[in-house]
């Protein structure tokens, strides 16, 4: 098997996929769910139900709040109890729609059967419209509204759809299980995306540590007979699934600083998103649930659960036996880029892919010592940056120099901090530098725009 990978940096953490044998099983529906209106990048959605309304599964309860926005659907049937601020997993408050669950009644028009529908609609626009109506957002982490990504700005042209099945973060296995258990649906989803982008070729990228998935998807593609679709075996390397890295690995094209993938002709969607596209287009089923890996060496039960959007984290954890004594940190997502959970009462969102339990020992950061100039951080950085330098510049609050040294290109993958033998909190500081560099860039762009408009008048 030839193996593909990105050209700069990367690290190789132990992959710890201890939940890989756990089939995806549905989690019983929680008695109450809390569905947030800001589950995606872009404008928060605007609730279109009122307290006291009866809702069904799959019914729209919030509408897009802007061009970059998404529909949000009820994940349960029941009564809207409140529409009020509620703390998310970091403890920050945002509007949530609280629904008390009664039964499990689905909205009309949703096909809840398992019948595989392989016929691809002829009209790309119809596909994109259904993706939009289904509230599909990127489920690989960024939660960018999918229909926006599928509508490239005028002048740019998509040349290839890439389905990201790398799942390069340690511990996570929900995409792997999805490829195994719903491979047909994912492949049809990929074909729909191909069609939506004008019949371009499609690459499904899967890391070499998932040989079963690679074999299965190859079989499915052969069986369903879609054209111009191939599986590409990727080297096990983090962050292989980073959008820019994956495009580099698959197409040997590097997306420029601040540019979008479409600028090099690529559209990337992850496996879970491809499945969501299938369900939205072929079955009229919006995103109301998603697969969540619950894992960690200190967690007694490994699991992949199909969880309704808006389920409180505590409900999931209690279902599996509660938080283990040794767990010191709970992470929503993977150990490299996931976010530490501060609030167990927070509810899942469309993009919740994993709950990972780490012990104090596993997650402890050793005390910081002097930089020994080993260059390991720079070797590891997939963006070709010099983390040791950016760290110093950010600490000196030299934001211009941060920008000059491309802090804004940092993808926050964590490779630098992961590798540093002196345990310097590189990324913590670089994030700050990146923030200032980005706001300086945005401020300049805004000023330039204003000046251009003033000149027109």
């Amino acid at each position, binding site marked *: 098997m030839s193996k593909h990978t990105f050209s700069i940096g990367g690290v190789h953490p132990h992959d710890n996929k201890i939940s890989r044998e756990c089939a995806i099983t549905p989690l019983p529906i929680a008695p109450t769910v809390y569905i947030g209106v800001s589950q995606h990048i872009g404008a928060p959605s605007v609730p279109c139900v009122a307290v006291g309304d009866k809702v069904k599964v799959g019914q729209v309860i919030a509408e897009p709040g802007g061009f970059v926005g998404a529909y949000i659907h009820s994940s349960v049937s029941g009564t809207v109890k409140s529409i009020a601020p509620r703390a998310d997993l970091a403890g920050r408050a945002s509007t949530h729609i609280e629904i008390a669950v009664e039964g499990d009644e689905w909205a009309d028009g949703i096909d809840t059967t398992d019948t595989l529908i392989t016929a691809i609609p002829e009209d790309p626009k119809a596909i994109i419209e259904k993706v939009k109506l289904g509230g599909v957002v990127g489920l690989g982490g960024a939660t960018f509204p999918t229909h926006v990504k599928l509508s490239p700005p005028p002048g740019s042209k998509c040349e290839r759809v890439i389905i990201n099945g790398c799942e390069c973060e340690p511990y996570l296995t929900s995409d792997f299980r999805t490829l195994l258990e719903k491979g047909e649906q994912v492949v049809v989803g990929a074909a729909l995306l191909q069609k939506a982008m004008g019949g371009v070729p499609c690459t499904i990228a899967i890391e070499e540590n998932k040989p079963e998935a690679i074999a299965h998807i190859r079989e499915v593609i052969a069986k369903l007979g879609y054209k111009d679709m191939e599986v590409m075996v990727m080297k096990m390397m983090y962050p292989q699934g980073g959008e820019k890295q994956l495009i580099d690995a698959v197409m040997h094209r*590097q997306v420029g600083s601040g540019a979008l993938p479409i600028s090099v002709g690529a559209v990337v969607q992850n496996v879970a998103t491809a499945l969501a596209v299938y369900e939205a287009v072929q079955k009229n089923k919006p995103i109301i649930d998603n697969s969540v890996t619950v894992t960690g060496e200190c967690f007694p039960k490994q699991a992949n659960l199909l969880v309704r959007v808006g389920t409180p984290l505590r409900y999931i954890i209690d279902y599996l036996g509660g938080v283990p004594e040794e767990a010191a940190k709970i992470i929503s997502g993977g150990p490299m880029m996931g976010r530490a959970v501060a609030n167990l009462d927070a509810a899942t969102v469309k993009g919740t892919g994993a709950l990972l339990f780490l012990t104090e020992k596993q997650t402890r950061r050793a005390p910081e010592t002097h930089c020994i100039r080993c260059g390991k951080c720079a070797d590891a950085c997939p*963006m070709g940056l010099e983390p040791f330098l950016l760290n110093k510049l950010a600490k000196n609050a030299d934001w211009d120099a941060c920008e000059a040294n491309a802090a804004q290109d940092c993808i926050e993958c964590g490779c630098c901090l992961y590798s540093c033998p002196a345990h310097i909190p590189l990324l913590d500081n670089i994030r700050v530098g990146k923030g200032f560099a980005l706001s300086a860039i945005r401020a300049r762009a805004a000023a330039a725009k204003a000046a251009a408009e003033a000149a027109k008048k």
Partner: protein
Amino acid sequence: MSKLLVSPSPHIHSKDSTRSLMLDVVIALIPAVVCSVVFYGWQELLVLGVSVASCVLLEWAITKYMLKKPSTIGDLSAVVTGILLALNVPYTTPWWVVFVGAVVAVGVAKMTFGGLGQNIWNPALVGRVFLLVSFPTYMTTWSKPQGLFGVDAVSGPTPLGAIQEGLMQGSTVQELTSAYNYKDLLFANLGGSAGEVCALALLAGFVYLCCRKVIKPWITLSIFATVALVSLIFWGVNPARFTDPLFNLLTGGLVLGACFMATDYVTSPMSVKGGVVFGVGIGLLTVLIRYFGSYPEGVSFAILIMNSVVPLLNMWFKQKKFGRK
């Protein structure tokens, strides 16, 4: 679980620490240490002991009493410096000379710059060169190794020293090198400072460091390649005046310097490109100093000179940034 820990990503860390990396360097030096003790006997053990102990104690005392900061000896870098210094001096060096070397290495070259990571020059090399300049008699009277159970040591100059002297007296290189055979050089059967004597043991350590990904091989390989190439040219032009490539590679601490001193993180460039330029510079300077300079070997000076330009190399040779020109 009492309270949830909340901190920014990443939430896991590689197992590498400064200490684990330095420990790997120590492990990589073990073959050479064992070799030199076997060949030179208890006197070498004394040099090693004094050197390591003084380096560690000095660093401990300086951090504790002068800097009033937590001790840094746990990172094992002082141990590495101690071993390297010991391998860089003859086994006959009196203990107090070794101690002076340690004071210069750790006290001056390392701690006055702010400790590990802040220094510009490789501490062990600074110590060695200081001794070479200050105590030339101790540093240049070498004895032919007699082995752990050997009796009297026979005094004699190092191969390179002998050749330089011989050349001054009008002999040709061929006559002079015929006294040595390369198997002796590889397997440590010649006069020289401890670390100069067993190329194979040092190379084994180098391979270990590369396999463990502690260092990258490019600096070392470019030194070897440059030394080989440049001396090939000189030797090709005038074999009576210049030593041949293999001889240059195997003598005068080149292997020790290229494998363990030039690859020191702190004092070598970060990028691969920078490292290659650094290595070529060291190789070139080494050969030129050997052929035309007044010191028979040149590795230490070559490395120290190139150490000084590392900041420039770091500025000039950077990794290409993703998606940028």
